[in-house]
């Protein structure tokens, strides 16, 4: 009974969210705040990253503190390919690319493979060690990109136009917004299938009781690694879209506070839920934007809000709604 109710809630929420997302550009014009479209794009992009992190935190029970690494790698794949498309090929052989159908899958792949490598090492540990080792690996990538002068290092790397998509004008912000919303919808749909599948069942079993999973004959490591890699790939997609939104990538995408922000979005919205991370991303982006307009000391508000959420709203905003 309770379960059926929850499922219906999620569906209602999903449909309502989708409707809101679809009319947002019109709404923005009506309200005289056209910048809301960009804000919405940003929310959709962060939501993709947060949803993918929730696969680890909420479903597999892995508290990764290095999600920004894959977000950044996805972004830099776009940036670096654009850089080489406009100039010399990479190492003199690999040509650049600007078409979305080449670049985006590549960004997803690069992030996924990197996650596979980092996960292979990190997943040898658990608990706090896992939190810290993922953090440390992300930090390592951060410094790598800071020191890469060819790609702008600390100053970042800008490029002139967004990746080409058939039928989408590169300068059209509203069109790009819809692309991001569509990507989010696809990710959410894929995600809901994934967590209900055999694979998803195993992940949820690992989260609830890894020892028990061992006792019924499952070696948890390959499943955790696969989840880590899939989540990394998801963050890679988010990073690629983010790079396209800004037409700019910089090491701050890989900064450890970005990993913290993704974690906050997941927990704020509600771990282990489909729409929780989306709500978390929306609240986070809007809160930051509004607080920052109100005072430069916005962190003095944001910090305690975070503490209060952890203390008193353990199941996030979605948990409060239930």
């Amino acid at each position: 009974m309770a379960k059926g109710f929850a499922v219906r809630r999620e569906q209602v929420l999903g449909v309502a969210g989708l409707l809101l997302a679809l009319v947002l550009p019109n709404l923005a014009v009506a309200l005289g705040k056209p910048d809301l479209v960009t804000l919405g794009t940003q929310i959709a992009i962060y939501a993709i990253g947060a949803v993918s992190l929730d696969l680890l935190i909420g479903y597999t029970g892995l508290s990764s503190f290095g999600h920004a690494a894959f977000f950044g790698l996805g972004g830099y794949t776009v940036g670096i390919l654009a850089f080489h498309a406009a100039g010399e090929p990479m190492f003199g052989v690999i040509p650049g690319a600007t078409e979305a159908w080449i670049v985006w899958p590549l960004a997803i792949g690069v992030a996924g493979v990197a996650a596979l490598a980092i996960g292979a090492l990190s997943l040898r540990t658990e608990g706090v060690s896992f939190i810290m080792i993922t953090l440390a690996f992300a930090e390592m990538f951060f410094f790598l990109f800071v020191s890469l002068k060819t790609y702008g290092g600390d100053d970042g790397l800008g490029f002139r136009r967004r990746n080409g998509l058939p039928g989408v004008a590169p300068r059209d912000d509203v069109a790009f917004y819809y692309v991001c919303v569509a990507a989010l919808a696809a990710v959410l749909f894929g995600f809901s299938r994934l967590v209900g599948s055999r694979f998803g069942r195993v992940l949820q079993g690992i989260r609830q009781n890894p020892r028990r999973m061992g006792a019924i004959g499952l070696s948890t490591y390959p499943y955790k690694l696969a989840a880590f890699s899939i989540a990394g790939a998801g963050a890679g997609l988010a990073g690629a879209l983010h790079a396209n939104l800004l037409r700019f990538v910089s090491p701050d995408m890989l900064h450890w506070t970005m990993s913290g922000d993704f974690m906050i979005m997941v927990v704020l919205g509600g771990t282990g839920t489909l729409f929780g991370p989306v709500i978390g991303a929306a609240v986070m982006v809007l809160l930051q934007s509004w607080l920052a307009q109100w005072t430069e000391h916005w962190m003095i508000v944001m910090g305690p809000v975070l503490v209060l959420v952890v203390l008193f709203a353990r199941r996030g905003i979605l948990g409060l709604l239930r």
Partner: protein
Amino acid sequence: MTVLLEVRGLVRRFGGLIAANNLSFDVVEGELHALIGPNGAGKSTAIGLISGEQRPDAGRVRFDGADVTALPIAARVKAGMTRSFQITSVLPDFTALENVALVYQVRAGHSFRFWRPAAGERALLEPAGAMLARIGLGGRADVPARDLAHGEQRQLELAMALATGAKLLLLDEPMAGLGTAESQAMTDILAGLKGHTTILLVEHDMDAVFALADRITVLVYGQAIASGTPKAIRGDPAVRDAYLGEDA
């Protein structure tokens, strides 16, 4: 009478503490073999070593004719042994049916299937439902495990262990924390399993042990000091010394 499990000379140290000290005993196919001993005798360590959660510093474990000492847990489960835990250990957010279905899923091979909803797979749900019925939880299949009574959770755990298709069940205090009635129900279930499945039982409830066991091995300070039928153990002077000496 074939020997299913052969434990030989297991040693396991934790710092200065010796939890298994040259431990040796056999479990014969089809029997219910109980492992008893005072607190801290190393019973749980023995289960841990046999199931593969812990690695011995010395000694061997042979199972079903093969040396499994170096095998990881999952491989031992595939070979046909599984364990339950002293502390209730189920998947609390899943229903009883989902708990057992997951065991059949794992048994069916790898789970790298990313798309089809597992909730609709009859190949998993049907045997799971049957197993729940067999263990007496047929009417509680759709209740989340966290909402089951303590005794029911222990039953569910047993159902999960059985669902692995194990030839040997390693049961670590299945009656711990159960009331009298629940204990009796569990004793009945275990009695019903006798003959179908070989069981190595660690248990503090001596009434249950002596009612159920075909043979008993007594552990003291990580060593097997006696092994035999309940009757023989009752009369063994070393056992009396260990227990009464401890208690006195």
